[in-house]
């Protein structure tokens, strides 16, 4: 068991990162309740392990890693599979994108929820918190090439889903479970 972080340091950590951590958790889980639980769990763990944080500039990446691990633990214990298998995620398109129509938040979350976690996490990090490929590779402990490949495929899948007419979504795709 590590030493508890001081109250002031913990509060500093919360003030600086709670919003982005909650948004990340929401996009991962697709549920406000799960997002709040995950955010609380991540900060509780961070409070217990604060002495492990050597570089405060790395606090954000550290917290995101803690939250992702907490999410993966829940995912494993709930034994709920994502709606789309790894093979179901589209290949990199030949043609680069057209302009997206207005993005409906519910459809966006559904489309994210359909992605397996190994695709969902990098794309959320990439868009949401502006992590570079190298940051994501480091955080997910993956080779850079794997991250680039997954991101390209995840983007293609996401765009394809968002470009589909609304009625096609209802007919062709399963509603995603958000993993929890």
């Amino acid at each position, binding site marked *: 068991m590590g030493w508890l972080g001081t109250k002031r340091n913990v*509060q500093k950590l919360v003030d600086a990162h*709670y919003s982005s951590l909650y948004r990340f958790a929401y996009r991962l889980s697709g549920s*406000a309740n799960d997002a709040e639980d995950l955010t609380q769990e991540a900060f509780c763990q961070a409070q217990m392990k604060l002495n492990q944080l050597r570089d405060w500039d790395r606090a954000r990446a550290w917290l995101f890693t803690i939250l992702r691990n907490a999410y993966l633990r829940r995912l494993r214990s709930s034994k709920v599979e994502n709606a789309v298998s790894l093979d179901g995620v589209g290949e990199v398109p030949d043609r680069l994108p057209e302009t997206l129509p207005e993005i409906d938040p519910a459809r966006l979350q559904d489309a994210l929820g359909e992605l397996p976690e190994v695709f969902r996490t990098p794309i959320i990090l990439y868009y949401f918190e502006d992590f570079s*490929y190298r940051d994501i590779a480091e955080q997910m402990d993956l080779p850079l090439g794997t991250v680039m490949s997954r991101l390209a495929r995840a983007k293609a899948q996401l765009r394809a889903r968002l470009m589909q007419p609304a009625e096609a979504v209802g007919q062709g795709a399963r509603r995603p479970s958000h993993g929890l």
Partner: protein
Amino acid sequence: MDCNHARLLLLFARKPADLDLADAEALGAHLDQCPDCQALAGAEERVDQALGRAIRDVAVPASLRERLLTRLQQERRVVWRYRLAAAGGLAAALLLTAGLAWAFWLGKQPEVDLNAFQDMVSIKVAAAPEQVEQWFQEQGVAMKAPTLFNYHLLYTYDTTHFMNRRVAKLIFVHRDSGSTAAVYVLSRTQFDWKSEELPPSIHTSFPSNHTIEPLPEDPDYLFLAVFTGGSLDPFRKPDGI
């Protein structure tokens, strides 16, 4: 760099930080002179921006921060309670272990060592009066070694209790006659007496005789001798010693 290479780079690495410096420069140079790829890159960037905005658009509950801080405070209390309980348990276990070790140590009796016994006895046999006095001084018992006795006959000495006071006791043995004398030395610092009231002579009774006399060399001490045989004379110092 041709268009295929440029589009591949646009697909996989759209942030400058994700490209090697050489690739980033080559891509920039290609986009500057290729309107098709430039349009494609622009479209890609717009899609990225739109997706980024949409993904970031998550409403954060207004009181989330307070709830988080409250929960963290509760966790801190739980952890401290747990740690205090654990520390208490550890301290109790240590005390118990120390107690058991102490009890074991106390309960363990030394084996009889005959050599130690012989040492203890032999060091006292025929000890000089000065040695005797020093030994009792170390035991905290005030005494004067009566000089009228023959210390060549001294067998042993130790402290004993008389009227709830620790006093010196010397044992003399006369080897030829086989008689013994136990001599108790009493100090005025522990007892009170009037010299004129002391019995004047040896009292005889079975199985031993006894006498009580002030020390000639120091009236603040007296000795009480209990002896076998008819007289204390065999134990007295012969003239000239």
